[in-house]
């Protein structure tokens, strides 16, 4: 304390002022950066949306997940029909909560030929927009390998659709499902762009976006999603990962499962068995 009074204190003040501002700026940047990080929003970070008003359902006690056994799928498309009916999805060729892709490798071809039920030839084969089927275009071809892959929303762990929604109309529930509040959605379609799986679509009549919810209105009542219930070959598996004996827990435990586009960092919660290199 033998310093001249005034000078060091002033220096100290300058020093503190400088580092104080720097610290404030850093803190601000860090907060902004954290807010922008995908997956930065854990349920504990922000107030949880209001829980669904269903008696006896505690969403903190479940962790829903979906499994697809592509080796079982026969491409009957009863899942797609059941989904459209159950969820009143627009009856046209551009709006699907779930769909099935057909991969066909012909002899001598290195790349798969891919189509789904919205292919005009397949729709023509079904004869209406209310029923779906794959046409028989390969009946005379030399098919080397062929399989079907059911697709639906992956209810990602770090959903990019939730990240980009400017009003928080789409959100992730405690039990792991991504939902949309149609009363909040402004219809900007940013989420449609952000989903790498093409799971979202826009309802022109309502001016809002929509997507698969794993039939949230059913699963919270102890029922299975409509597509799972309609599948005649058990290619779709659904259940609670918190329950070790649930079908999905066993499916994930007993198989070497894959997810679609793991490189995106979205953490999809649909687990696949029996898909090939070209499936993404």
């Amino acid at each position: 304390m033998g310093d001249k009074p005034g000078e060091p204190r002033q220096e100290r003040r300058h020093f503190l002022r400088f580092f104080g501002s720097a610290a404030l700026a850093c803190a601000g940047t860090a907060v902004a950066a954290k807010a922008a990080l995908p997956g930065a929003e854990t349920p504990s970070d922000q107030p949880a949306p209001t829980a669904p008003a269903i008696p006896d359902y505690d969403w903190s006690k479940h962790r829903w997940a979906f499994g697809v056994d592509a080796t079982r799928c026969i491409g009957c498309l009863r899942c797609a029909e059941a989904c459209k009916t159950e969820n009143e999805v627009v009856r046209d060729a551009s709006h699907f909560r779930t769909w099935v892709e057909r991969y066909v490798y012909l002899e001598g071809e290195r790349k798969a030929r891919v189509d789904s039920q919205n292919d005009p030839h397949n729709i023509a084969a079904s004869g209406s927009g209310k029923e779906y089927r794959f046409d028989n275009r390969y009946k005379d071809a030399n098919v080397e390998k062929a399989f079907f892959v059911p697709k639906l929303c992956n209810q990602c762990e770090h959903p990019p659709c939730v990240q980009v929604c400017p009003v928080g109309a789409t959100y992730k529930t405690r039990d792991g499902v991504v939902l949309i509040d149609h009363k909040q959605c402004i219809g900007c379609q940013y989420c449609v762009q952000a989903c790498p799986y093409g799971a979202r679509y826009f309802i022109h009549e309502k001016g809002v976006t929509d997507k698969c919810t794993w039939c949230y209105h059913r699963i919270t009542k102890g029922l299975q999603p409509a597509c799972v219930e309609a599948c005649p070959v058990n290619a779709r598996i659904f259940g609670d990962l918190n329950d070790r004996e649930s079908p999905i827990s066993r499916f994930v435990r007993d198989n070497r499962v894959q997810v679609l586009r793991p490189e995106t960092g979205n953490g999809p919660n649909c687990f696949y068995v029996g898909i090939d290199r070209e499936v993404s």
Partner: protein
Amino acid sequence: MEGTSAYAALNAGNPNGTDMPLMEGLFAHAAPYVGYVYPNETDIPWTVLIVVYPYLTGLVAGAFTVSSLYHVFGMQRFKPAAGLALLTALCFLIFVPLALLLHLGHPERSFNTMITPHWTSAFVMFGYLAGFYVILLMLECWFVFRPHIVQQAQQRDGPLGLFYRVLSLGSYDLSPKAMHYDEKWIFALAVIGIPGAHGLHGYVGFVFGSLKSREWWSSDLMPPIFLFSAIISGTALLIVLYALSCKLRRIPIDLACLKGLGYTLWGFMMFTLVLEGVEFGALVYRGREGIEVIMEFVTGRLVIPLFVLQFGLGSVLPICLLTYMFWRGTTGKALIAGVTTSAVLVLLAVLMMRWNVVIGGQEIAKTGKGLLTYVPTLYGREGLIVAGSLVLVPLVLLLVVTRLFPPWNLNGAPAPAPHAGMRRFG
């Protein structure tokens, strides 16, 4: 590429003899495609309005840059166009939100992005940035045109007189002290406006560049590319408007100003071209999944819009033209014709760039296995007529505004000496 087209299938008729008219509704929003695309992708989310949106913000950012060259950096040669630049920025900015509002499914809920924002969304910033920037521009315009407003308020009667009197906000003081005070405000607002305008447009680039779902967009270079192309589009617009206004007013064009704008255009075009080239080169060089489809797209249907219109006609030709004129020391009518032609070409190039990014990105399917075709509609809320009107209506507004606030001679507004502003804040 093996594939199907929804429209082709409809036109070809149904092989099973189904009644096709009954099925037409099934393809109401379906874009034609080849290869394999996800079923929901056939309804293209962002239409021509989202092409217009970055185009308009770009024109705003560019025009403001030119006005700042005079108001902040004291570049006297830009004085004849500085006032016009400010009014141009304001007139175009007013219509930017309209492009987005017309696109929204629920425009009446748009304010929720500001009232109940979800901060992780890049979209959230638009409301705040645009709102802040509109206020800033209006304030700057008020200070710049205050001498004219006061003069008119004192001279005119009737509704127009009332209009100016209300606009004067009761401040009639044009003393040197008051003017000096105004000058400080203009400088400060112009300084804040530079990051404001550029932030607004860099952010638009971020909206596209940050999406990992589309390879065509996903690039860290997207924000600077959008920013530099914004500056060149705004400068080009100003060149055209300045030359046109002089023609209409039958006064000689200030060649030093025009040439200065030409230099600005040339310099920023170099940056833009290099950035675009590097971005495209990196995309091809990385060659990630789906690059085959991208290359098929680029070397196929994108040859005319990207290589011929955007790069060739809209970028390389004007750069060559401007370089030749600067090298040869061209002056007079030839300079006016050359610089204005270059500016028109640049305006076309930037419009094509917006189209190629926004629409092109959506035409490349997320599957990496197919290509869609966006078919714009002529009528309707998201049709070409509405989109075209959004680009032209600001010009009509500008015509009216320049009558009310003539920007041709900013006599009342203080002309800062070269670098005076920088010294003041230095």
